[in-house]
């Protein structure tokens, strides 16, 4: 094997801090190389150095690509050499078609006039290569995140990719979509494409990677062949300590039924004839953590949002009872007042006002509690924000820090603080650990256990089955808008959940 890429002693400093401190990375031609590390370890910075986002000269060290020094001044430079990076946040234009997106900036055209036949023909080729069965003219808007990811890869393939970099490609994907994507990576490898994958999901890393490089605090900790490497080995390198248990210990004794949802039916907000949630009934006991498993698009988020103040859907029918009494959840303020909180799946676009400080975000859903006569009591606000910062161990210089500056895990803690401050009886957590690193996940799990211990009911929606299995007392399985099964912690396993979904 020959070396395709070698990054030698890369040091990148931002005012006051070294983001990368003599990081080295060596990628062999034709391999899949995983880069692991906690959030803030410097993985993304390293990839930005590689792809020219940080131009040559703005960092120290050297990059050897195909055996010669590479001085990329911008992304175009690196793309010309076949280095394509696919970011965590997809860079597709939703209002354009798949074909238009794939050839955006690289149009099949002569004299500025696009050759649509050629464009669509090439698109079809590329789509079949990545295993996506959609028409080239389909709008990106109308396909799911998993398929969009495939479009991104098709786009990369259209540019004669030699080194494909995937930054947390499966973060937003469902288990089976993830698997498809990983298989595609293996297939591309067989075709000679070298890949770098950045991922938190160690199972995936072990599945696809040939070599694993772990980065911690801006330095390379280890580069080892994936063969024979266990997940625990990787985790130990990532966090610098042993993590024997991925999930904190808990011993729960659920009490009486706290919340009961009966015969919940929701129709699609635009397609009037589509029933999104079909007669769903479930309950949560006090001090219990209940999971909702299901594929993406099965209606889990829609179920949660429709219960939370009818934030989704139309013609909603069914009842919600708290402690046996029917409650009014017809809008968000009423749902909050009834004692229900919903921690959104997408914390950046739905959960936080990013440009405002922690204090602002902490009190946002319960401003009445920190004001009298409509006038805010800022000292009280600060006190509350400080209280939750300590209680949830949010790592930040102060509560006056803008939340945009926090890492994913700490942002999630701010969202949790916001909802805890509304003193809910029931918390619905939608993908509470998405995009969060291993150490922070553990902390979020601990918080969830504490809430249950305080007698609150927790509903946990997650795409990561091990997480549901490790945390929940009961798991409901959802498929195509209906709850198709209910398993106790003792009965549940990944296989049983999958079989419930498949056999419906």
């Amino acid at each position, binding site marked *: 094997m020959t070396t395709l890429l070698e990054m030698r002693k890369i040091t990148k400093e931002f005012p006051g801090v070294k983001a990368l401190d003599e990081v080295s990375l060596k990628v062999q031609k034709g391999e899949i190389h995983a880069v692991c590390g906690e959030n803030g370890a*410097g993985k993304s910075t390293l990839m930005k150095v590689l792809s020219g986002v940080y131009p040559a000269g703005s960092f120290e060290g050297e990059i050897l690509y195909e055996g010669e020094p590479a001085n990329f001044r911008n992304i175009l430079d690196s793309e010309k050499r076949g280095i394509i990076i696919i970011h965590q946040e997809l860079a597709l234009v939703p209002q354009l078609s798949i074909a238009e997106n794939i050839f955006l900036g690289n149009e099949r055209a002569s004299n500025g006039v696009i050759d649509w036949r050629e464009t669509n023909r090439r698109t079809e080729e590329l789509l079949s290569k990545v295993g996506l069965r959609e028409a080239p003219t389909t709008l990106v808007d109308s396909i799911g995140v998993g398929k969009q990811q495939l479009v991104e890869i098709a786009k990369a393939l259209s540019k004669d990719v030699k080194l494909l970099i995937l930054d947390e490609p499966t973060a937003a994907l469902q288990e089976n979509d993830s698997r498809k994507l990983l298989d595609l990576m293996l297939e591309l490898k067989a075709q000679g494409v070298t890949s770098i994958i950045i991922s938190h999901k160690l199972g995936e890393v072990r599945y696809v990677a040939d070599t694993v490089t772990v980065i911690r605090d801006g330095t390379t900790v280890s580069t080892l062949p994936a063969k024979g490497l266990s997940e625990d080995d990787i985790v130990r390198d990532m966090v610098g300590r042993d993590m024997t248990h991925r999930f904190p210990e808990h011993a729960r004794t659920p009490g009486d039924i706290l919340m009961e949802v009966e015969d919940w039916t929701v129709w699609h907000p635009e397609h009037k004839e589509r029933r999104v949630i079909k007669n769903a009934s479930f309950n949560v006991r006090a001090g219990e953590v209940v999971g909702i498993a299901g594929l993406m698009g099965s209606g889990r988020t829609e179920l949660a949002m429709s219960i939370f103040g009818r934030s989704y859907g139309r013609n909603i029918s069914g009842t919600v009872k708290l402690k046996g009494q029917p409650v009014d959840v017809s809008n968000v303020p009423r749902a*909050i007042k009834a004692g229900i909180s919903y921690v959104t799946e997408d914390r950046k676009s739905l959960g936080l006002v*990013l440009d405002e400080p922690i204090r602002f975000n902490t009190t946002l859903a319960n401003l009445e509690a920190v004001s009298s006569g409509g*006038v805010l009591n800022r000292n009280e606000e600060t006190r509350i924000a400080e209280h939750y910062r300590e209680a949830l161990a949010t790592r930040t210089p102060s509560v*006056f820090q803008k939340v945009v500056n926090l890492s994913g895990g700490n942002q999630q803690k701010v969202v949790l603080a916001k909802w805890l401050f509304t003193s809910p009886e029931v918390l619905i957590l939608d993908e509470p650990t998405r995009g969060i690193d291993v150490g922070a996940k553990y902390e979020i799990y601990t918080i969830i256990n504490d809430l249950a211990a305080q007698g609150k009911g927790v509903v946990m929606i997650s795409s990561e089955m091990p997480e549901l299995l490790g945390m929940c007392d009961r798991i409901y399985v959802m498929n195509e808008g209906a709850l198709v099964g209910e398993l106790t912690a003792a009965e549940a396993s990944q296989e049983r959940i999958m079989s419930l979904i498949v056999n419906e």
Partner: protein
Amino acid sequence: MDSANIEHSSSDASGSSKGVAAYLASHLREYGLLLALIVIMAFFQIVTEGTLLRAVNVTNLLLQNSYIIIMALGMLVVIVSGNIDLSVGSVMGFVGALAAVMIVNYDISIYATIVVCLIVGGLVGAAQGYWVAYWKIPSFIVTLAGMLVFRGLSLWLLEGQSVGPFPREFQIVANGFVPDIFPAGIGEFFAGIFDARKVNVLALFAGVAAAIIIFWMGSRQRARNKAYGIEDEPSSFFIARNVIVAAALIFITYKLSTFRGLPNVLITMGVLTIIYAFITSSTVIGRRIYALGGNAKAAKLSGIKTERLTFLAFTNMGILAAAAGLVFAARLNTATPKAGFGLELDVIAAVFIGGASMSGGVGTIIGAVVGAFLMGVLNNGMSIMGIGIDYQQMIKGLVLLAAVIFDVYNKQKQG
């Protein structure tokens, strides 16, 4: 994402340790605005050979810009909520026309007219806010339509003619002055010191009192911040800023006192500015407007009635545009079909120069007021210099662009 975290936590770490330089870097915008105003004033003071800051011109400056500032207060709220209102100039003209027709043509009492006009302004704002808030029609479009509609309505109402003059009692809304409450002896005493013809002691007193109150409230806030460990501006900055503000206040009121004293509009303007500064910074509704502009979806899912807030922001804007319309008509002593033409752009420019963000969620009342004064001083100074309207427009345009470029540059440097 990773790099951004590191970058930011670093700037905070240095913020607390390195002090002055770092603080200045992160608050360059606020100081820059104040500094720009001072520099521009100094410049015009020199090139106009002292005309800019003559008592009569200072008074004029306040009167000329009063309606812009009154509308800028409402516009700031609208822009922070993530919207824009292009109709305010037309609404202002329309309400002035309505007042003229009611008072001059129909002899309706002044107080009844003022109340009716403010209500009409509120209704106009509500009508536009309704479509923006509950039908999600972009505010740009709704208020562009409003701009045309109300421009037409003014023309129709005035039948294309100017209507005026107003009775004396109405004129004082804009052109009146607060009478001195202090005994004449004190005024003569100061007149002797200042070598002026006469001195309005109330104006002088108000300036000193305002300076003391601002300093006192600032110190109290500082003490409180310290108790909570909030990163605060270095004391040298605090003192320098307060000395400048206090000196400016006292200087302006001194100038006013040697002319005719405190204009009524200054009181209206000052009170409204304080009220809106308080609402935006210290009340629940103010907080919610920032949340709405910062992230409407998150605000809605936090139980905030975002539609109603948007609706209220426009209603409020309508009322303030009506107030401005009354002041404007009273000042000109006549209502003309062209009144308020293009003024919305001055108002919007003032808010953006004051540091508000087009995408919402960012901006302050004080910034908007200072921005309005900055534009006002530019207008006034250039007019005194005899610069043609052609150059004036170009220079104002470039100042607006420069202010926003400065904002964006600053943000990039930090982010």
